[in-house]
Structure formats: structure tokens, C-alpha cells
């Protein structure tokens, strides 16, 4: 199908450009166009609930613009013109307009082609779908461990098989936070999603990428359309000296030049960045002193969760797009 400035015949889909968008209708013959609401120019703007399928003459449809007609190709499937015209007439007065799901283009496509679609909305949707999403959520881990099931069931069993009570709670609430994050960022309902474990035993879904991290008192979840890794730390103050072993030679040199007061932050930042990078790599072994964080795109920041200031790092393609949703209340 293509658009051409040719005179329409009854049953043809027509459109007119109004500003940056097109207004669509169906030409039903005798200078008449049936459309879902008149062209959305300012003087006619209505609330969605007031918009209805209506009829106008071509001049009113055009609002001073130029008419374009959909010219079908042999491969296009369309209704018979008389069927299209009859269908349009039965729908006069119908309401339920929605710019996203039921607009003038959806109406015209449905009446002419038999398929409800909106190329303009698809374009907008794809534009947003291509925007980088780097959403990180954190939450304090509640004291109790409810028996409300996790989805999928295999994940539930895996979590409840943990022998260590503290780790069990961390894993349980991390998955609960994932459930929350998937819904809030993408509108995904976890029970409708597919999950599986990859060769390295890591949980995956074809719907998006995600990463999980937990400390004794807090959990963090990152979700994105690109590969992503997250790590949150900061509670093992007594073990901070051990983190020096995780530095590369270059980092160790950089570390040695730092003031005493800046060293702890440096170690936590490097450690969390390395762990977040490792989570994006398909490698069996985490060798932190072999990961040069400067070779990857990471972002590190301090976040407050569970009444503590923790260090959080994300590794992904566009970490600068990070949006943080902190201290989500889990139940």
C-alpha cells in the first residue's frame, strides 16, 4: 500500500496531514468521509470520551490540507469496498476513542483492511522501545519470610532450598523486587513471562535483561533492554582491606596515590563495578583482579537503602541513563 494524491473512490482509506501527524478516515462516496473524530486541530479538540465516529464532507475532513488516498497493491488484503462502506456506517456514533489503542488510524485500517493498526502509534512505540532503559531498584530486606510463592515455581524451590536463613531471605526478596521492577519499568506481569536458566545457571527471560544483587540488609535489581549487571555492597567494613587484592596493577597504583580518606570509597567502587561487569560477561569464573573497569561502561553511585549508605554499580551500554528507584517497600 502506498499513499498518493489521487481522487478516492468509495471504500478507500484517506488521510490528511495536520501538523506533524496525519488524520485518517474512509471515503464512502458522494463527498462524504467517515472518521473517528474530526481532525485534531485546536478549535475542535475534545476530551477522548467525547470523540465519536462521525461523518463529514471532504472539505471539513481536510481542514485546509491536502487529501491523500491509500493505493493498494495486489498483495494487500482489503475488504470489498461495499463491505467497508457498510461497516463504517454501522459504526457512526461509536465512542471509546483512545489515542494509543483506538484512534482514527486504527478505525480506518480496521474498516478498510480488516486489521486494526496504527502506523503512527507503532512508530512512537518503536521510538520509545529503542530508547535505552537502565532502571535500578533497591529495597530493604524485611525480617520475616512469607510463604507467598515466587514465580516460576522452580525458582521458588531453589530459593527455599537455601540452607542459610539469611541468604534465603535475600534471594526471596530479590525475586520479589524483580517482580516489582519488571511491572513498573515494562508493565510485565511475572506470571505471564517465560524464565529459564542458561548454561551457567543464571536465570534469563526473552522479554528483557535483568540482574540481581544482595547484601545482608538490602537487595538491588537492574532491568534493561540491553545486557546489564548490577552490584550493591558496603556493609562488610571489616573486610575492606581484602578488596585491595581485587585491584589490577594499574588500579593498585592509582589506589596507592589516594588520600587515606578516599581509599574505602575507591575500593567499594572498583569492587562493585567489577562484579557488575562480570555479570554482563558469559564467563564461568569471576577474576576481579583481571577486570579493568575502564574497559567497560559502568556507573557507580552511593545510594541510601535500609538506613545505610551503600555503593551501587551498574555495567551496561548506556549507564548514564540510569534511573534509581530506591528503598522500595517490599511485603
Amino acid at each position: 500500500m502506498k499513499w498518493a494524491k489521487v481522487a478516492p473512490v468509495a471504500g478507500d482509506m484517506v488521510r490528511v496531514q495536520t501538523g506533524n501527524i496525519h488524520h485518517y478516515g474512509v471515503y464512502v462516496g458522494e463527498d462524504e468521509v467517515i472518521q473517528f473524530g474530526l481532525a485534531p486541530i485546536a478549535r475542535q479538540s475534545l476530551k477522548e470520551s467525547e470523540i465519536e465516529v462521525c461523518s463529514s464532507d471532504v472539505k471539513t475532513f481536510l481542514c485546509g490540507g491536502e487529501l491523500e488516498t491509500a493505493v493498494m497493491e495486489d498483495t494487500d488484503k482489503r475488504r470489498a469496498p461495499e463491505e467497508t462502506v457498510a461497516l463504517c456506517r454501522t459504526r457512526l456514533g461509536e465512542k471509546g476513542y483512545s489515542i494509543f489503542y483506538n484512534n482514527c488510524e486504527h478505525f480506518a485500517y480496521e474498516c478498510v483492511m480488516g486489521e486494526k493498526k496504527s502506523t503512527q502509534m507503532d512508530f512512537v512505540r518503536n521510538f520509545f522501545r529503542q530508547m535505552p532503559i537502565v532502571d535500578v531498584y533497591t529495597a530493604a530486606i524485611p525480617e520475616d519470610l512469607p510463604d507467598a510463592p515466587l514465580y516460576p515455581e522452580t525458582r521458588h524451590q531453589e530459593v527455599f532450598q537455601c540452607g542459610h536463613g539469611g541468604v534465603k531471605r535475600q534471594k526471596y526478596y530479590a525475586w520479589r523486587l524483580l517482580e516489582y521492577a519488571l511491572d513498573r519499568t515494562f508493565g510485565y506481569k511475572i506470571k505471564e513471562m517465560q524464565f529459564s536458566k542458561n548454561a551457567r545457571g543464571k536465570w534469563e527471560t526473552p522479554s528483557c535483561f535483568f540482574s540481581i544483587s544482595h547484601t545482608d540488609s538490602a537487595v538491588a535489581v537492574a532491568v534493561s533492554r540491553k545486557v546489564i549487571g548490577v552490584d550493591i555492597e558496603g556493609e562488610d567494613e571489616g573486610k575492606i582491606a581484602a578488596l585491595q587484592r581485587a585491584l589490577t596493577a594499574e588500579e593498585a597504583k592509582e589506589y596507592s596515590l589516594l588520600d587515606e580518606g578516599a581509599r574505602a570509597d575507591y575500593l567499594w567502587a572498583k569492587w562493585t563495578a567489577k562484579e557488575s561487569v562480570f555479570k554482563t560477561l558469559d564467563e564461568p569464573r569471576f577474576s576481579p583482579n583481571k577486570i579493568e573497569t575502564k574497559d567497560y561502561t559502568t556507573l557507580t553511585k552511593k545510594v541510601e537503602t535500609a538506613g545505610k549508605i551503600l555503593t551501587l554499580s551498574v555495567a551496561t551500554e548506556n549507564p548514564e541513563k540510569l534511573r534509581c528507584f530506591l528503598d522500595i517497600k517490599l511485603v
Partner: protein
Amino acid sequence: MTRTEITEKLKDVFQMAAGKTYDESKYDESSNLTTDLGLNSVGILYCVIAIEEFFGIRFEDVGFGDFKTVGDTIDYIEKKLAE
């Protein structure tokens, strides 16, 4: 050093590494370092260094993934001590 001696010495290492979250009742060769003993990644790094000090061995790098359970760790130490 016998396997029993290594096992006993390792208990102290894990206790220090896991700190207050350590659960001694779960300690045997099949115990998973993270899901049974409560070690996190920083705790495992701490263990690596503690094992070096306690057993006088040296890890080529501080990579994780070579041992998941207490038994794996003992195997690794036995192998290193025999070198």
C-alpha cells in the same frame, strides 16, 4: 596435613569470612559456601586471602568459581599443598 585437619581449620576461615551470618550447623563437605554458609562475594574474597595465610599457599588469581562447596575448597587446598 590431613583432610580432617584442613576441614577443621577451614571452619575458622569461613566463620571469620561470614561473620555474624555464619551458620555452623550447616558446615559439612557438601555445604554450599553462599546458600548454606551465608558467604557473599566479598566474604569469598576474604576467604581466599585467609586460606592463603592459614595454609601458606598462593592463589594464582583471586578468581571465584573454582569452588562452590566446602568439599571443593578442601580438594583445592589439598591439591595446592601437594604441589
